[in-house]
């Protein structure tokens, strides 16, 4: 809990906050170019957030205090998770107080409040989005926990900083079968939890294809800005986890300014590459029918279960 540790944690949070809309901008731009369009540029998400912050807030007439509390809870849990995830360094102060289980439950807290806000307005859209979102979140939980457990076997601890450091120290563990299976499982969970194709279409506003968008239909102004920022940050968390757990080189393990600079540059590079890959996956795949999604999540659970058992038998 030194001053430098706390400063690093806060700067990690600020960096992820600043970067996430750009990462989303890259995803949208790559998708636009792949589809033959001009695209709005990678700065558009920040322009959207700025516009929303200046707009008026509207509350549905039958909503309660949960309606305004939900965006705040979603946002602050995302900020706290941003201090915990090892994005530029493994030496953040948060590693002494929280591990990836805290990350999982903080993210779940945000999901729960957003689902409640969806029910708050009393509309059918909100209820539908809320019901589907909680189904997907409940079915993706076991995969997420087991996948990170499989990866944590290399460090014998559940602290994310130590797991990344163990990856840097023993590179052979990164291509172990357990690691690759866990990567597959985590990739599917990333798509499921963040509402990307093939699980949900983030660009749609048709009720047949909505999950996340349906819950946030009633929010406007700063509420919607906070929700959008938080959802951008959550996607970037998962991408950062995939990047730093499986390709950990570049993450700073010391506190020197040079290492931190390399860490920031490495993070930027990895995020851009992963954003482009995600975008191409979205362009090439079609959205699954809603009741095929549990099958997909069950398959990812099998992958993560295999990853854990293989890690104990082959490691």
């Amino acid at each position: 809990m030194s001053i430098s540790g706390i400063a690093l944690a806060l700067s990690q949070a600020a960096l992820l906050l600043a970067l996430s809309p750009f990462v989303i901008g890259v995803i949208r731009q790559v998708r636009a170019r792949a589809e033959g369009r001009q695209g709005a540029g990678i700065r558009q998400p920040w322009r959207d957030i700025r516009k929303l912050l200046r707009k008026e807030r509207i509350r549905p007439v039958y909503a309660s205090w949960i309606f305004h509390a939900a965006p705040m809870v979603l946002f602050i849990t995302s900020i706290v998770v941003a201090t915990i995830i090892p994005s530029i360094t493994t030496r953040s102060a948060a590693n002494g107080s929280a591990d990836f289980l805290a990350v999982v439950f903080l993210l779940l807290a945000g999901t729960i409040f957003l689902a409640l806000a969806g029910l708050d307005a009393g509309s059918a859209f909100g209820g539908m989005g809320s019901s589907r979102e909680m189904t997907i979140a409940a079915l993706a939980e076991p995969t997420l926990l087991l996948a990170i457990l499989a990866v944590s076997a290399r460090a014998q601890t559940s602290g994310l900083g130590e797991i990344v450091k163990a990856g840097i120290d023993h590179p052979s563990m990164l291509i172990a079968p357990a690691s690759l299976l866990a990567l597959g499982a985590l990739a599917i969970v990333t798509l499921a939890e963040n509402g990307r194709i093939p699980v949900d279409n983030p660009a749609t506003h048709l009720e047949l294809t909505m999950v996340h968008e349906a819950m946030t239909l009633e929010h406007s102004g700063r509420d919607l800005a906070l929700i959008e920022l938080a959802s951008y940050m959550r996607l970037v968390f998962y991408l950062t986890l995939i990047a730093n757990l499986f390709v950990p080189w570049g993450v700073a393990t010391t506190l020197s300014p040079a290492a931190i600079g390399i860490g920031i540059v490495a993070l930027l590079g990895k995020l851009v590459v992963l954003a482009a890959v995600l975008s191409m996956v979205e362009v090439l795949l079609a959205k699954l029918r809603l009741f095929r999604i549990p099958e997909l999540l069950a398959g990812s659970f099998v992958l993560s279960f295999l990853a854990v058992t293989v890690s104990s038998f082959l490691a």
Partner: protein
Amino acid sequence: MTFAQGAFGLAGLLLLLGGLSGLLLPTTARRFLTNLLTAIGAGAACVGAIRVFTSNEPLSIVANNVLPFGQAVFEIDELSAFFMLVIGVVAIPAAIYAVGYTKHGLSSRTTQAMFPVFVLSMLLVVSAASMATFLICWELMAITSLVLVVTEHRHRDARSAGIWYAAMTHFGFLAILVGFAILSMHAPLDTFGVIGESSLTITPWLRSLAFLLFFVGFASKAGAVPFHVWLPRAHAEAPSHVSALMSGAMVKMGIYGIVRVCWDLMGLGSRWWYMVILAVGIVSAIFGILHAMASHDLKRLLAYSTSENIGLILIALGAAGIYKVGKSDALAAFAVAAALLHVLNHAVFKGLLFLSAGSVLFATHNRNLDQLGGLAKRMPFTMLTFAIGAMAISAIPPLNGFASEWLMLQSLFQGIPSDSAYRNVLFPLALGAMALAGGLVAATFVKALGTGFLALPRSESAAEATEVGGFMKIGQLLLAITCVVLGFGASFLSGLLTRTVASLRGLYDIEPINHHHAWMQLPGSSTRLSTLVIGAVLIGAVILTIVVLRLLRSPAKARVAPTWACGRELQTPRMEYTSTSYAEPLRRVFANVLRPDSDISVDRRNESQYFVQSVHYYLDLRDVIERRFYTPLLTFARKWGELGRQLQNGSIHRYLAYIMVALLCVLVIAR
């Protein structure tokens, strides 16, 4: 007489006095005095329990000539004191709550008088230290709770719940009795210590039989699947303060029994014992939460969720046993500590949820979530306390559910990878089950909170609800504050857990959790958690966000507007999701487990096929285990009973013939 002895004596006296006042006083005085005496008596027991922890003197009381056979032996060590704290932490708020709750129609002499006796019987069960004392106190607890369950005996459902509960609790009692009979065959009716020593000489397969019988008996009291069928019925039909106490404290008596008898008394067993506990835990967790998810009755939902949490506790206890057999004592102690913390935390947040559900029931006379709603504006305090309970049970940091969930998950994590193949396969399965249960718990309580409290009321009973009175609010507030305090201060409980675990056989002198003020650290690992720090950072983030938004001059005042509905003007409650529709995707996914029976019939108009007159939808979601296992068993038993009834046809000649045959047999055998 030491301070602790005085405290416990005072507790017993006050509770008995409460029972008496419930019998003798007139209605209003009865309501106040009985319940307040119960609260103060439970408080005295808690003070005594804390004293047992702070001093180092185990307490022992022997009373001769109280019981028909042998002495009544009571011994209060750290484990008993811990469970007394669990009982007290639910009983005090529930008793205060009962002052307001029993106002309309629930203040009969029997109901009021039995409540303090029920609390007393539970305190006696955890302090009993001989076979006879334990069994008699266990039966006393069963009978008092049975009387309380059938308080509203004019309703058919309450009577049926009472019959199921009576049958299952006595089935459990029989199993425990036979288990004790086997275990104490060299030292019948003696104290626990002597029985424990003498049982080491019994053949292994007899010990295993005794373990199975004990486990069946205690697991049925705890509400583990497949012996859980009484739980949803009894906890739903009992008055809400009794449900809170039963779900918070009485099912933990089953866990107490497993820890005291199967761990402390019997010592170490074979590995398959603990694999059985683990397997039952996994099945209970998944089955319980699926039925909670599918349930539209608020109190049945909470009761099935109790079953799920008992499953989680059993998973941790099974893992502890497997660690002990594999000689990892530190991990075994850690797993037991995790289970015990969850026992405490579950008592607190489940008690809170039941009390809030009771307030809803008191205000609307309706338990059906499909007909509630709109209570956020009409009952804001109850909604806030229910929300705190729901967040706690979903394991949201920094509330108390998160700390115990973290400990239980870590206790399984630390065991993989290992040399034992059983562990490498079983523990990831258990982890997957716990994670799935965690996700489903979140979905269930979003459903309960969302459809029960938010948006528009779906029926008149919900539309006319008003907030409850002072005493009920105080009871809920006490538990809500306890949830928050136990959450932020979870690491400060490590000392308590260490003392409790260190008193168990085979785990002496082990420190399960290293604690440095606000941090909990696992022994032998660098993993640390501090719920206090997480909570502080969350609060800091709120303040920072509000300040930044203020600086950016983002408009804060919200304009009220109708809900967007694609241009439709009217908004009625019919447009909202009900709890049954909310659960439909998960019901569909888990249809093979829940096996719902559904039917849709559509009536069309005579004039045209395309105009619908009415739609009938039928959904039957009765408990699968009840339908497929218990109902055929009961039918079978009834058939044999009816066959046996033919022996008794009223003819006195036949009865005389029976007597003669019996006499002849006795003369022949006893020759």
